[in-house]
C-alpha cells in the first residue's frame, strides 16, 4: 500500500507538473474534508448539532446528500429487520 501511494503521488505530481509536496498537501486537505463531513454528519444524525449548524459546517448540498443517504439506509434496515 505504501509503495502504491508513493507511486501514485509521483504519477499525479508528474501529470500535474507540481511538486510531490503539493500533492501531499492537497491529499491531506481532501482527507480532512471527508473526515470532517463524517464527523459533522455523525453529530447531526445523533442530534448533537442542529440542521443549521450542520449546514454552516459542510454546506447545504452535502448535508442534503447525507440526509438522503441516511434516509435510504434507515428505510433499508427497518425493512430488512421486519420483512
Amino acid at each position, binding site marked *: 500500500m505504501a509503495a502504491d501511494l508513493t507511486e501514485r503521488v509521483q504519477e499525479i505530481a508528474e501529470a500535474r507538473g507540481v511538486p510531490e509536496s503539493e500533492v501531499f498537501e492537497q491529499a491531506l486537505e481532501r482527507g480532512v474534508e471527508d473526515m470532517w463531513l463524517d464527523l459533522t454528519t455523525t453529530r447531526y*444524525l445523533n442530534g448533537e448539532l442542529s440542521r443549521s449548524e450542520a449546514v454552516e459546517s459542510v454546506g447545504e448540498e452535502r448535508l442534503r446528500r447525507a440526509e438522503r*443517504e441516511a434516509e435510504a*439506509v*434507515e428505510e*433499508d434496515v427497518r425493512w430488512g*429487520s421486519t*420483512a
Partner: protein
Amino acid sequence: MIVAVTDAGPLIHLGEIDSLELPEVIDELVVPESVRRELEAGGAPGGFDDRSVEVATAGGDESWVEAGLDAGEAAALAVAADRDAILLTDDLAARDAATETGVEVHGSIGIIALASGRGGLTEDEAAQLMRSLQTDTSLFVTDAVVEHGIEILREDSDG
C-alpha cells in the same frame, strides 16, 4: 413472499464483498435482460449464477433515462412496476424514480439487513458487511450514515 427486481448495483456491490449469496434471501429475484447483459459485459461478479434468478425482458420509460437512470435501472424499475415487486438498487436517482412511481425500493444494505432479520447472518456479521460495503466497494455512502444504519439494526434486533 418477497419478489424483487434488481439492477446491477446491488449485485456488483455485494460481489465486491464476496457476499453474492445474500440475495438468495429474496424469495424470488428477477434480473432484467439488460442488467444481465450489463453484468456480463462488465465481468459478472464472482459467484453470480443467473440460473438462480429469473431473467425478464422489459424496456424502461424514456423519461426515467432522461432523468439520469441508466438502461438497466430503467428496465429494473419497469419490471418491478409491472409485477408489483420491490426494486433493488443502490442508486439514489433510481430510488427517487421508484418512489415517485409507487414502487417499494431497497438496496444492498437492505439485503444485508434482511439476511440478518431472517437469521442468515448474525447482527455482528451484518454490521461488518455494512462497514465493508462502505470501505471495500464502489458504493458511495459516508461512514457516518453506515454507522447510523448499524445502530438502527442493533436497536431493532434488541427491541
